[in-house]
């Protein structure tokens, strides 16, 4: 490392006097494989947890209303989501700190407070939708939500409170991999393969044209595929896992694999929605759709979709609550690691618990229009995303902090500013849609 950069380094004195334990392997490829498996986790989790209950609703609704017409949007979102999250990985590995702490320290309290309050607001609203989906799926499975929702909240709290990052990560990675079942579900519904390939590669609009609801749904898809909490979550996760400089390429691969997996699963959700459209079923919500398609797909597919919806909500809840807890604890200077037992990081775990418990409690009280809330939260996330990415972009161009090795290259900046502009244009279209709805044909 150049001497000029040494002034920016904090020397942390190792707390271990013995040699680190590890796996001895003899070949280079085995070394690479084992290293990748050890680094693997945050990228997959952040991407797949983004296929949460709201995402299931949004993607399935996209398929149910517009068939395969919106598949091309997913293909565009694949590189976008990767490039955004890759920046977070670099920042997390270079600094060993979370995103909220970084904004506070480099931009000051005022901007830090805005950034944190945006995150906590959207996260909390999203958590309410996660529990609403849990309640919905459980009721369709014949479980009383008054019993099932509190039980889910307790299970979600126990999941993080084991004092072991590794244990939490293994369980959550297993839950992520359960989403491969979406591929089987899509296959069982006999998808129109040629149409899917054509719609994925060639952008198209439905026969009804570009209507208000079509645009609203596109913004919701963008909002659910790249969400602000992901930036905070992955950087904190990378920091908590203590990924090293040498892990960067494996962490990038983890993120890319997660992005591809997530987009494939999202496409399967749209294909499931398309199956209901092909049979002219009215779409209300994904749980009702699962019940409706039992008539032609069988009870197995119905149960699978309901359980996958539950799994999506559980994944979303743990990741989103953790992003809030990490961010809040970082800013307050509290100990914040899944490696710490409850008594050593009580504030961090308390924030997690409050997020989960409050969202679960709210769901049990009112009977809100679930589908509308979910879609609006996704749009809100889409609206807030450009501002979150601008902070990220400024941080990644902070050469004083990151040096030339980790700072953005000019091609990174071109891509990122393009992404930011696309997101701004989408949010401006949303604004136009609200202020002057007559500009958009209703459909």
């Amino acid at each position: 490392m150049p001497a000029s950069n040494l002034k920016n380094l904090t020397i942390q004195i190792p707390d271990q006097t013995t040699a680190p334990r590890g796996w001895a392997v003899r070949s280079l490829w085995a070394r690479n494989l084992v290293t990748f498996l050890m680094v693997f986790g945050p990228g997959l989790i952040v991407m797949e947890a983004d296929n949460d209950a709201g995402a299931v609703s949004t993607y399935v609704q996209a398929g149910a209303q517009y068939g395969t017409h919106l598949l091309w949007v997913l293909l565009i979102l694949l590189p976008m989501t990767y490039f955004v999250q890759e920046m977070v990985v670099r920042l997390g590995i270079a600094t060993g700190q979370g995103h909220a702490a970084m904004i506070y320290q480099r931009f000051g309290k005022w901007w830090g407070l805005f950034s944190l309050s945006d995150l906590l607001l959207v996260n909390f609203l999203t958590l309410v939708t996660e529990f609403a989906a849990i309640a919905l799926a459980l009721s369709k499975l014949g479980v009383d939500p008054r019993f099932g929702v509190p039980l889910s909240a307790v299970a979600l709290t126990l999941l993080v409170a084991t004092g072991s990052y590794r244990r939490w990560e293994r369980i959550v990675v297993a839950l992520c991999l359960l989403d491969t079942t979406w591929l089987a579900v899509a296959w069982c519904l006999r998808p129109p393969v040629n149409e899917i390939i054509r719609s994925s590669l060639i952008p198209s609009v439905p026969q009804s044209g570009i209507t208000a609801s079509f645009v609203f749904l596109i913004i919701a898809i963008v909002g659910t595929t790249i969400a602000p909490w992901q930036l905070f979550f992955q950087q904190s996760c990378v920091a908590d896992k203590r990924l090293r400089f040498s892990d960067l390429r494996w962490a990038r691969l983890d993120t890319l694999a997660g992005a591809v997996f997530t987009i494939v699963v999202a496409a399967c959700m749209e294909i499931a929605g398309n199956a209901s459209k092909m049979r002219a079923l009215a779409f209300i919500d994904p749980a009702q759709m699962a019940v409706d398609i039992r008539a032609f797909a069988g009870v197995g597919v119905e149960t699978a979709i309901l359980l996958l919806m539950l799994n999506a909500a559980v994944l979303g809840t743990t990741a989103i609550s953790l992003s809030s807890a990490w961010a809040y604890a970082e800013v307050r200077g509290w100990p914040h690691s899944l490696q710490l037992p409850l008594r050593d990081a009580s504030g961090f775990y308390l924030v997690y618990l409050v997020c989960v418990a409050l969202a679960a409690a709210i769901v049990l009280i009112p009977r809100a229009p679930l589908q509308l809330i979910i879609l609006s939260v996704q749009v809100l996330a889409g609206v807030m995303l450009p501002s979150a990415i601008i902070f990220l972009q400024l941080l990644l161009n902070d050469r004083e902090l990151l040096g030339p090795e980790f700072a953005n290259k000019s091609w990174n900046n071109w891509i990122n500013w393009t992404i930011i502009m696309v997101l701004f244009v989408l949010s401006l279209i949303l604004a136009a849609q609200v202020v002057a709805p007559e500009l958009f044909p209703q459909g």
Partner: protein
Amino acid sequence: MRTRTKNEKRDAFLVVHPLDDLPEEKRDVSALGRMPMTLSVRLSLIALRVYLILMIGLVVYHFLGLAQAFKRVAH
């Protein structure tokens, strides 16, 4: 950190999990203080904040419209 250790018979690689490895020197954010921002960057961020507040208001308005909250109030 992956350490290549010389075995008596053959070379081997020791692959260590990040959580088991020795802590690494990281970039020190706190020593740098605040990022220097030009007036134009500062004004852009303020404009962004105003834009965001307006957009949140619009989304809430749109949501209430779709939920037919205004019609209920009128009734």
